[in-house]
């Protein structure tokens, strides 16, 4: 049950500049907790005081926005790729 997480530039200071890190989690929520254990401080960058994913953070599992899945309850399987991406402007 291992997944790859792509770390966006603004968070790489916390991951020792690692662009991709591996986690082993059952859900997105678990993956965020695991990241927090390994890279303290990363969770508060991703979720707000109420525990919801921050409104300018987009999280994707295999290129699908988790808001079209089950948000933080979205389940993960072996080999899934998770991307964390800031919202960007129109064009």
């Amino acid at each position, binding site marked *: 049950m291992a997944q790859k997480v*792509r770390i*966006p*530039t*603004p*968070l790489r*200071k916390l991951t020792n500049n690692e*662009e991709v890190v591996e986690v082993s989690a059952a859900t997105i929520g678990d993956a965020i907790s695991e990241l927090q254990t390994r890279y303290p401080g990363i969770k508060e*960058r991703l979720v*707000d005081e109420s525990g919801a994913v*921050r*409104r*300018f*953070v*987009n999280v*994707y599992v295999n*290129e699908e*926005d988790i*808001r*079209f899945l089950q948000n933080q309850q979205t389940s993960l399987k072996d080999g899934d790729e998770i*991307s964390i*991406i*800031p*919202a*960007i*402007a*129109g*064009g």
Partner: protein
Amino acid sequence: MHSESGFMKALKCRECGREYPLAATHVCEFDFGPLEVVYDYDRIKKSLSRAAIADRPHTMWRYRELLPVANEPTVGKQVGFTPLVKADRLAKALGVREAWVKNDTVNYPTLSFKDRVVSVALSRARELGFSTVACASTGNLANSVAANAASAGMRAYVFIPADLEQGKIVNSLVYGANVIGIKGHYDEVNRLCAEIAGKYGWAFVNVNMRPYYAEGSKSMGFEIVEQLGWRIPEHTIVPMASGSLLTKIQKSYQELIKLGLTSESSYRVHGAQATGCSPISAAQKAGLDFFKPVKPNTIAKSLAIGTPADGFYALKVMKETNSAAEDVTDDEIRDAIKLLAETEGIFTETAGGVTVGVARKLIASGKIPAKDSIVLCITGNGLKTLDAVNGHAGQPREIKPSLREFEGILSPAERALVNA
């Protein structure tokens, strides 16, 4: 005089207020909030007056102090100051006292409002030492980045959904830009570009250059106010994709008030979307201050952003200014394109059809009172989205080169026009 920062002071997170240096960076490291340029308004006030502006060339750069470049612009110096057309025939058709069309279908050089944001982004990119520029685009931005980069001698990579209108694809390729078609919709193009931007050291105009880029939209609002004789319109109707333009039009009005260039008055800034991609208007109509992302399905491809980055702020602006949002179907968009063309001789792309169609709805529902005056932001040219109206605008009547055949196809009413 060379300057490092011009009239800018810093970048600042719109969410938490943390400040950052004036670099190519767009999100707050702490909460991912978008960064925005902070200006030194005291200094701007000493430099910018109606008289000073009147002496300058008719381009968007006549408001240079309020645009985020440190020195004189080097890219897109001719952009902007498009006509504000008094649209009496359209006003009559819409059932409103007075209507004006801010006509960016003839913006220079690529016939959309995107030339405004790109001239700022590329001028600033040069100041920051970049030689390669890039963008994620629904088409118009790609066209503008390609053309403006070509004239500036910069390398360009533009990323677009592969299924875009042919006109918009050719309009990027012709300038020699590297055009990458992504098999997916714009939100997927955007996601990929965020990842590419993180890896390649390019100036992505709507990613790491976004704080500068987005400010270019304000010039449309400055021009509207100046062209109305330094008066803020009662109603401005603005198309929404990411929602950025709407927030920047409102910001432009606020800045002109703050600087004393126009007087404080009540105004509304209404948002227009296509029903097939209406996350912001749906939220506004439901009274929510957040939106639900959608998967776009509309002919208004230039507005087809299902996860609008400035959606929260657009909702906030509409709430604070007591404005409305509305959306229109593909058929209503085509009808509105024809209405604008037939009443004012202006051929807009689908986004302009959205704006006109929404204005019609807001007037019909009384949300825009019939006694008021409106400005419609028409942001792009219809020649770029011919696919959308092809087959809906009628067909030419074909004949042999013979007078007899010509008169044979005329209706009795037309024949009566013999001396008209």
